[in-house]
């Protein structure tokens, strides 16, 4: 079943065309890895889907609801954001809240949930990402991997239909990457729908079911991840994968 369908997303910064017509379909349960060279527009695409950037053109159909992306009113955007979640490269935890507070903040403030109920959900989500016992820790007291897991718990709290991840492990020391990828793999296995911008080739290959390759503001190749890795059509993609595999990232 299609959860999200976007067509013709375009976005300019000044006169630089960063997205030049993106079409995208996300089905429930999809785990879509987005890969591509630096500056190709991966982050911008994700941000457009969450309306952190306002696209210049584009139509989105989310769970049957049509949204004209350039003109969508505040209320529509707010409603959409309650059904999606975003995990940032730099975690962006609320620095004046504990781990638990980070997870419950949106529930209490945006969803007007009673505190006790929110905290129950919060504890459950923290447990899910392996952060039980750290409820009262402040972000500054946590490692990057722990902060990112709290951020994932925060994303899960609103019971979203879709989670967008923008390079969730890129800011982490290598030894901390595994704990975050482990949580994401577990979510994938539970059927969570996710779009993940990543340079983690193992994740794209083994966890995601679809892969998109972006270059220069366009999706230039996509397919099931088995197909994509077994038989990339473009030489460009082949060499990009080879470089990621050799651990050189970009």
């Amino acid at each position: 079943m299609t959860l999200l369908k976007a067509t013709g997303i375009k976005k300019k910064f000044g006169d630089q065309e960063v997205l030049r017509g993106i079409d995208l379909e996300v089905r429930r349960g999809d785990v879509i890895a987005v890969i591509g060279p630096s500056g190709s527009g991966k982050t911008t695409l994700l941000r457009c889907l969450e309306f952190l950037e306002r696209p210049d053109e584009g139509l989105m159909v989310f769970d049957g609801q049509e949204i004209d992306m350039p003109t969508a009113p505040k209320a529509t955007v707010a409603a959409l954001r309650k059904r999606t979640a975003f995990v940032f490269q730099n975690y962006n935890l609320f620095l004046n809240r504990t781990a638990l507070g980070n997870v419950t903040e949106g529930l209490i403030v945006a969803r007007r949930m009673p505190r006790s109920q929110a905290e129950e959900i919060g504890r459950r989500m923290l447990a899910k990402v392996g952060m039980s016992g750290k409820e009262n820790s402040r972000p500054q007291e946590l490692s990057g991997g722990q902060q990112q897991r709290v951020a994932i718990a925060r994303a899960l709290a609103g019971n979203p239909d879709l989670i967008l991840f923008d390079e969730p492990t890129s800011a982490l020391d290598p030894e901390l990457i595994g704990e975050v990828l482990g949580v994401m793999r577990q979510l994938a296995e539970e059927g969570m729908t996710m779009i993940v911008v990543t340079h983690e080739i193992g994740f794209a290959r083994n966890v995601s079911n679809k892969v998109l390759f972006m270059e220069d503001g366009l999706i230039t190749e996509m397919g099931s991840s088995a197909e994509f890795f077994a038989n990339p059509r473009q030489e460009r993609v082949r060499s990009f994968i080879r470089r990621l595999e050799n651990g050189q990232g970009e």
Partner: protein
Amino acid sequence: MTERVLEILRDSFTKILIPGILVTIPLTVLAFSFALIIAVVVALIQFAKVRGLRQICRFYIWVIRGTPLLVQLYLIFYGLPSLGVVLNAFPCAVLVFAINEGAYCAETMRAALESVPRGQIEAGYCAGMSYLQIMRRIVLPQAFRTAFPPLSNSLIGMVKDTSLAANITVVEMFMTTQRIVARTYEPLALYAEVALIYLIFCTVLTRLQRAGEKRLAHVAQ
């Protein structure tokens, strides 16, 4: 020091302290509270880049910071009556001090707001929160924590600046001292005495500031 001077000092201590408690402190507290309100509003307008209003805020800060406080006091108290606007001395002092301090504190608040890592605002949006909710619950508390030491500084500065209100007939500590000096001809001893009382007030505030900072270190961040 002669017996007479000690006698005068002992006598005048409460005479000076009373207007300190009844005038200087209320003037400071009222003016600074209004200044904080002005500061938060003006800083938020600039931070949120509200069109139109933002230019007005910049203009306000430019004018206030570019003119002497004493001139502002004279302008409002002695100048406005010729336009038919007559204010009593005390409310006039509160008004001028609030408007003046508000401009400085607004800049402090703005810098503090800018120092809060921006990503949290986006994270707030993604959690479904509105801009105002994010400001009130996430950004402002952190900004206040950053701004607390410089704002305390401003408060301490204001306690001393209230002595300027003597120029517009507010009978606060300094004016009271001047009157006693006029009667007794002991300027050295009496001005030293009033200086000491200001020092005591500011010492108390410094202590409070330190306690507040300790407390904030636990509460926020």
